[in-house]
């Protein structure tokens, strides 16, 4: 099967073209570097199947960052290159086109974001460009699917350009091409451009950033809480719980009944597969996942995230990162797995290591946060704030010290800031659907499995045995009951489950704070551990885990002394 490679600068809409071409849904965001891993799909054109690969964006083929290296290596293996360009920045985009032409592969050029050229007073003669470079040139607005059929029709006629680059300066060629195909008429600044300036200047941008972050937090909390208290909790208690209890009570086996419904009917502490196993993911965690990703998607698609990264550049230097390190850390508030993957936008290994530690230590992931809120709420909001405050503070201190300990300096920020874009509700909904589906399909089976394992261990007496023989020292340091040790063991599997496991122990507020802090920080969950070992190697993953375990045990012990 022939391979079509979608290549181009970062943030020009390659993923949107990929998605439209193959019908595969992928995450699309308005910031450079949102595709760090390549996606593959298929398209049928005139009865012939082609493999389509969405290559991470690159500015040149010099391979400065990991994403660029991946792109450069992959380009060598393709049969047809579809070079996607941002029509509103033709000059800079054509620089990569010139390098791609040198690969001597059949090529089609896509002038994407074509609708914006009109608003910006840019006129491009696509036919003339096709004539000069001697390859098909198609104009598209990929996010809404305009031009995709024409692109499909053009792919079979992709050809190797005979454009002669000669030995001259590449910019002379670019200048001459731009001169003959593009004209720009003067226009006034739009509202969005003025807004963009206000958001990025430190004097106005920093207070606005504070306000946006505060509102984002409040909005996430409000939506999550409202969904739980007004919709999901009542639905669970009034309809679902009585239904499953009635259903299971028809069975004679008490063991089956305990496994499915748990030791008691309390949704948090009973630990039945059909009660707690459903209540934790769908009633407690899902609403917060929904509200967090709604806020994050708005920040991503509007183009605000890179602006925040620029504003926080000086702060991030204290932790050995430049401002762009903010993006993986923010993604980590949702789930650590995509956050660790996003560290690929950082260039050096030292940065990736520091960013990984910050991701793991500065905040719990959203399922954990939801569980912390849920379990501490009856003791008062101040305990929730204390727990989260301690975690953030410790994360920042650890990141700061690690930066001092590791040799090397923070690299300089060098990023393109995308324009502020109006939100497209349908794109936002698609993205939300993709992320929610990801959570439901991946996390729910694991949570149910976790609940099942806990139940089996409890019934077989294994928990008592492990606690009595191995758990004493750890539970003593943390000031927890001895039989709470298995909670720590299960945390490695799913952290939200491990926090919910605390419910039956009747811990006081101080003990809950200590356990929540410890469970959040002590080890990455199993999925995160695998991603870290894939990105940085098993040795580094083990080192990082040992570091976080030591930090959390010391902190847990100290908190136990202070709070009790």
């Amino acid at each position, binding site marked *: 099967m022939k391979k079509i490679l979608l290549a181009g600068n970062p943030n020009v809409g390659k993923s949107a073209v990929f998605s439209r071409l193959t019908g595969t849904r992928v995450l699309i965001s308005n910031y450079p570097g949102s595709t760090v891993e390549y996606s593959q799909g298929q398209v049928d054109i005139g009865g012939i199947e082609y493999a389509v690969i969405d290559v991470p964006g690159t*500015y*040149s083929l*010099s391979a*400065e960052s990991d994403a660029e290296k991946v792109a450069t290596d992959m380009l060598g293996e393709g049969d047809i290159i579809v070079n996607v360009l941002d029509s*509103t*920045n033709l*000059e*800079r985009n054509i*620089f*990569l086109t010139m390098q791609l032409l040198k690969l001597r592969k059949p090529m089609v050029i896509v002038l994407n974001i074509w609708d914006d050229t009109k608003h*910006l007073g*840019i006129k491009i003669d696509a036919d003339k460009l096709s004539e000069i470079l001697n390859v098909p040139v198609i104009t598209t607005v990929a996010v809404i699917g305009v031009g995709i059929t024409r692109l499909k029709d053009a792919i079979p006629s992709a050809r190797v350009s005979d454009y002669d680059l000669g030995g001259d300066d590449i*910019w002379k060629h670019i200048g001459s091409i731009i001169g003959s195909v593009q004209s720009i008429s003067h226009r006034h600044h739009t509202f969005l451009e003025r807004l*963009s*300036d206000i958001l*990025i*200047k*430190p004097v106005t*941008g920093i207070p606005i950033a504070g306000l946006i972050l505060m509102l984002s937090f409040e909005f996430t909390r409000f939506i999550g809480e409202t969904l739980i208290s007004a919709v999901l909790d009542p639905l669970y208690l009034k309809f679902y719980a009585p239904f499953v209890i009635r259903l299971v009570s028809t069975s004679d086996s008490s063991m089956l009944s305990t496994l499915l419904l748990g030791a008691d009917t309390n949704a948090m502490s009973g630990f039945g597969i059909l009660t707690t196993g459903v209540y934790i993911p769908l009633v407690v965690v899902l609403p917060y996942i929904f509200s967090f990703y709604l806020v994050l998607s708005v920040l991503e698609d509007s183009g605000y995230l*890179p602006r925040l*990264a*620029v504003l926080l*550049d*000086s702060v991030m230097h204290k932790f050995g990162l*430049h*401002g762009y390190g903010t993006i993986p850390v923010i993604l980590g508030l949702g789930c650590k797995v995509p956050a660790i993957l996003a560290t690929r936008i950082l260039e050096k290994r030292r940065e990736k290591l520091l960013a990984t530690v910050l991701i793991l230590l500065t905040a719990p992931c959203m399922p954990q946060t939801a569980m912390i809120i849920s379990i501490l709420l009856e003791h008062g909001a101040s305990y929730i704030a204390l727990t989260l405050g301690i975690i953030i503070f410790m994360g920042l201190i650890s990141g700061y010290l690690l930066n001092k300990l590791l040799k090397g300096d923070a*690299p*300089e*920020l*060098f*990023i*393109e*800031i995308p*324009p502020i874009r109006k939100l497209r509700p349908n794109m936002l909904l698609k993205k939300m659907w993709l992320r929610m589906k990801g959570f439901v399909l991946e996390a729910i089976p694991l949570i149910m499995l976790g609940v099942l394992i806990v139940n089996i261990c409890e019934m077989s007496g294994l928990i008592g045995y492990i606690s009595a023989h191995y758990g004493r020292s750890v539970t003593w340091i943390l000031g927890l009951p001895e039989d709470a040790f298995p909670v720590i063991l299960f945390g490695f599997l799913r952290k939200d489950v491990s926090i919910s496991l605390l419910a039956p122990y009747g811990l006081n507020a101080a003990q809950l704070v200590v356990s929540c802090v410890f469970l959040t920080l002590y080890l990455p969950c199993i999925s995160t551990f695998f991603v870290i070992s894939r990105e940085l190697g098993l040795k580094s993953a083990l080192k990082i885990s040992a570091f976080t375990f030591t930090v959390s045990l010391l902190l847990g012990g100290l908190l136990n002394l202070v709070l009790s």
Partner: protein
Amino acid sequence: MLNRLEEIKMLINLTELDEGKGAWVREIRGGNCLNTKMESMGIRAGKKIMKSGGLKTRGPQIVKFDNLQVAIGFGMAKHIMIEAE
């Protein structure tokens, strides 16, 4: 020779440019790596830019050119020699 000296005297680095002012990039004083990095982003000798944000003492410098906006770290921006408009 004299003209070249006068030209060098007139050059300042990007961090010294006032916010909201335009300039021409004249030289990127750095190794091959820095030059390639800048060039692939579209910043090269002869390019007209406008500093749209950034303090003169620290922090990233924001430049606009064509329809692009790029944030450049303070240390890196010191290597970009410009001639103010």
